[in-house]
């Protein structure tokens, strides 16, 4: 009985910590993005609310909560209301399988620093990242607006194309780690991160993950200058904000899984594991923001060409080469 109680308690604590950290990070990721983008454009970002604008996320959140939530005539109400939650929810669920540190022992019990230590973690992440597209596609479709619809369709097409490349880029990782368990994958990189042993897979992964998060240069679903705001044109207030919470949670998720799959997770010299993980997790969103400041948006046909004609064949080739080397006896 006490065993079950302790287990539930540990589980609850882990979920609370992960949720709090992820939401806090997502809020401040918005501030970080606005600040960094500002500096990239030789201006200050928000700096009026609190010292250095540190209270800006709270002000933004309050504003979003107090705004009128407009639901246009002609939308399919139920789906319209649920769509933003799908985007944010799918991103949040994926954190259940992301490990945040090595397994340690407390009071004679083995405690893993992951909400669910499942053996198919990689597949769970794939499943959830494919689910997120339903929020975008359904939100665009039910808005009863041609620009939203176009955004939603683009989102769906883009996700399908890049999901494939994303999957192919992770197959060599699973092959080298000989496991789909995320903790095991991290432990397989104790000496050398996969970013160095699998540079091609790493490049494919970063590009297609960029496309999965719908960010510049792959932000076609919300292309402002063609589609107003794409799939979230008709959303307002907190529902609109939920799409963005989803996007920023996704950025952190992307940072976490990049750290886990390619950067060696919490492994690193000198510094404690959690610091290494934080550095690696935050490096990816900073790179994404840098990318947003640097690159223009791809054209739709270019996007498709890069996905199908370049990333997918390269990914397949990479799997073949990795398999050949592994079977050759390394």
């Amino acid at each position, binding site marked *: 009985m006490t065993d079950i109680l302790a287990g539930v308690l540990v589980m609850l604590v882990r979920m609370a910590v992960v949720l709090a950290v992820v939401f806090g990070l997502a809020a401040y990721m918005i501030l970080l993005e606005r600040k960094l983008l500002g500096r990239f454009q030789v201006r200050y970002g928000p700096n009026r609310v609190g010292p250095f604008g540190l209270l800006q996320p709270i002000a933004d959140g309050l504003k979003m909560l107090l705004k009128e939530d407009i639901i246009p005539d002609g939308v399919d109400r139920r789906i319209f209301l649920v769509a933003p939650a799908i985007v944010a929810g799918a991103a949040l669920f994926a954190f259940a399988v992301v490990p945040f540190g090595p397994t340690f022992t407390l009071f004679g019990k083995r405690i893993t620093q992951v909400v669910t230590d499942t053996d198919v973690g990689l597949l769970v992440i794939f499943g959830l990242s494919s689910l997120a597209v339903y929020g975008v596609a359904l939100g665009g479709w039910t808005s009863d607006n041609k620009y939203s619809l176009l955004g939603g369709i683009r989102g769906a097409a883009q996700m399908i194309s890049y999901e494939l490349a994303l999957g192919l880029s992770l197959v060599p990782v699973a092959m080298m780690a000989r496991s789909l368990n995320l903790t095991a994958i991290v432990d397989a990189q104790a000496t050398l991160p996969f970013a160095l042993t699998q540079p091609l897979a790493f490049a494919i992964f970063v590009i297609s993950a960029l496309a999965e998060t719908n960010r510049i240069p792959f932000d076609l679903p919300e292309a402002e200058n063609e589609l107003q705001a794409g799939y979230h044109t008709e959303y307002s207030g907190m529902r609109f904000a939920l799409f963005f919470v989803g996007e920023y949670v996704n950025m952190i998720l992307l940072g976490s899984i990049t750290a886990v799959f390619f950067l060696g997770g919490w492994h690193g010299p000198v510094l404690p594991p959690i610091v290494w993980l934080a550095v690696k997790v935050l490096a990816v969103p900073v790179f994404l923001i*840098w990318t947003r400041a640097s690159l223009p948006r791809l054209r739709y046909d270019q996007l498709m060409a890069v996905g199908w004609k370049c990333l997918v064949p390269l990914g397949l080739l990479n799997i073949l080469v990795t398999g050949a080397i592994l079977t050759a006896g390394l």
Partner: protein
Amino acid sequence: MDEKKDTPGLVREFLDGAAGIAGSYAATLTHLFRKPITEQYPDYKRPMPPRARGRIILTRSPDGKERCVACYLCSGVCPVNCISMQSEEGPDGRRRAAWFRINFARCIYCGLCEEACPTLAIQLTPEFAFCKDAIEDFVYEKEDLLVTHGGKDPDYDFYAHAGVAAGAPKGEHLGEDEPVDVKSILP
């Protein structure tokens, strides 16, 4: 064979593309370490040029009297009809405005009134930030417009040059000859 020379090879194309992308990353990176050029407005107010066109004032001559002689030229030239007034004669015999009103909600700050004014009374100041909660508050009366100084040309005194007896007796204005007795120049 010749066609192949024109189209760059795959490797070359890849390298060119990678160099292009790396170049844009490098460009943004150098900007990251520059000092922002933003002027943080309420904390730092850029010094405006003295002839910048903002809120309108009515100035006074060096002797402290109103310059405005209520000639209606500013009101006449105003393209949006935001200036209105009523003229009267003061106790010292000088013309002045009984009331003078500018509706700043309509004013377009074109400066034509300042150009039209023969006495340099109406002038535009560089002050541009005077927001109001209610639109009625933009109607400025004469007491709101009158200032205690001479504005851009503090030493100018219209009545010292005017040749009108209201300022100084005849023949005592700056650079003015004695009045000629017309009967003395009869043939």
